[in-house]
């Protein structure tokens, strides 16, 4: 088993009076793809938000690269290579595509390397190059998702949190996006993936965690979970 890059231990999160996460423990090994699956409202996005510093856990520990990070502000974590591509794409429609991508590299000063990564992003998603000068709001949903992923890569993340990259996309586009997620992982980026599309997500993941009403109810390798009867029934429509 690879060394843990990210480790959540008994994490609780509250939204006001609502207890959104109850003792969630998740382990993401260096170089792995780990996926969180579960229904709407199960706490998947909340888990990612707690990791990236958008939410403060009320109890438990979040360790990243061996250090406690619970409650640190997001921009501090980006500086350490922890990058979160939020749900609903989270691109800036009022900025051009090029400006969006450059914002991904906001904390970096190595302009030569940034140019290289920009080129890499354009190679992964040629459509973005064609439209670099356009406002990002003019892109289609799939293109916006591509932009969100390309932008997250501009930070040269060590750990990439992806929230529902397939949301609302045509099946073909989803396939492309998942292929690229695997490529990114092969290039050495650890990925924590939240997905509704359990079949696809478990297919590419080393490990999976199933969340229900704020707790982890099942865990295993991607292949194990794909075979599990409960999962097949609850999430794969059998």
């Amino acid at each position, binding site marked *: 088993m690879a060394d843990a890059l990210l480790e959540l231990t008994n994490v609780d999160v509250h939204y006001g009076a609502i207890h959104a996460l109850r003792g969630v423990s998740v382990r993401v090994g260096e170089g792995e793809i780990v996926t969180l699956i579960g229904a709407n409202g199960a706490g998947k996005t909340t888990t990612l938000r707690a990791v990236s510093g958008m939410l403060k856990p009320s109890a438990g520990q979040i360790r990243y690269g061996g250090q406690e990070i619970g409650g640190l502000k997001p921009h501090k974590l*980006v500086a350490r290579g922890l990058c979160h591509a939020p749900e609903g794409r989270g691109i800036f429609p009022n900025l051009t595509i090029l400006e969006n991508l450059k*914002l991904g590299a*906001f904390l970096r000063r190595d302009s030569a390397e940034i140019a290289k990564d920009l080129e890499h992003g354009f190679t992964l998603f040629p459509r973005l190059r064609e439209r670099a000068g356009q406002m990002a709001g003019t892109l289609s949903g799939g293109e916006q998702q591509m932009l969100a992923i390309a932008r997250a890569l501009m930070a040269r993340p060590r750990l990439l949190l992806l929230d529902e990259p397939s949301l609302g996309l045509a099946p073909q586009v989803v396939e492309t996006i998942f292929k690229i997620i695997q490529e990114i992982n092969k290039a050495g980026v650890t990925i924590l993936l939240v997905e509704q599309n359990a079949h696809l997500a478990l297919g590419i993941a080393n490990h999976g965690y199933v969340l229900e009403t704020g707790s982890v109810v099942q865990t295993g390798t991607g292949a194990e979970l794909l075979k599990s009867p409960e999962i097949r029934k609850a999430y794969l429509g059998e």
Partner: protein
Amino acid sequence: MDGVSLGAIYALIALGYTMVYGVLQLINFAHGDVFMLGSMIGWYASARWTGESQHPSILGAVAVTLLSMVLCGCVGFVIERLAYRPLRGAPKINSLITAIGVSFFLEYGGQYAFGPNPRAFGVLPHRPPLHLFGITIGYVDVVTIVISVLLMVVLQRIVFHSRIGTAMRAVSWNPSVAALMGINIDFIISFTFVLGSVLAAVAGILYASKYPSVHPLMGLMPGLKAFVAAVLGGIGNVPGAMLGGLLLGLAEQLVSGYTSSSWRDAVAFGILILILLIKPSGLLGKGTAEKV
């Protein structure tokens, strides 16, 4: 030309309203009073601390303006830090009420500290009006227009062509996502307040040079007018604030020129009502819809 220079001053103040609204969705009603402080600091710097107002010179005027810009920038920073930041997570209405409170604090604190009496203001040396292309234009108006245009060009560069400007626009769209890019939101918000306050300081000096009477309540009317200008152009929209300021200044001066000057305030606020009825997003504002 009188209208253009008045409009330019409104535009400078309006930019502060609109930028702060852009990043915080807050109407900073204290902004007009920062403008007042800009004039007041100018008065102290020229008439009290130095003899500048006795022997005005261009160099002296520049020095006074720079000092006022720096001090107002600090004031803007402190206001955000003490009054608005603790309320960042609270409902918007709380911040709005606080803004009105800060405004009253500066106005009546100003009356206490500076006294309520108007003071004569003069930092610019007197020059005869200029005659250009058959029109006569006051010296102060020329200076006002030149400086305002210069500042707006600089601001345009900052907002649309710099790293920090891109970050400002990102924060204005969605602060929490901007934070995920590694942008320090608190820093950007402070920067926005400082930038707006610096512009208000210049506007304060220019306004006081045009209407040379400085007192603690002087920020009230220009502040409200500039707010109208910001709404007219589309609140949150930087070019809109410039356009709105210009149009409002022109409208006011044309109305007072052709009818009676007692109509000018009515026209300004009439414009506000009209724009809110017809196109609430402002002339250059546009509603945006999220794609799914």
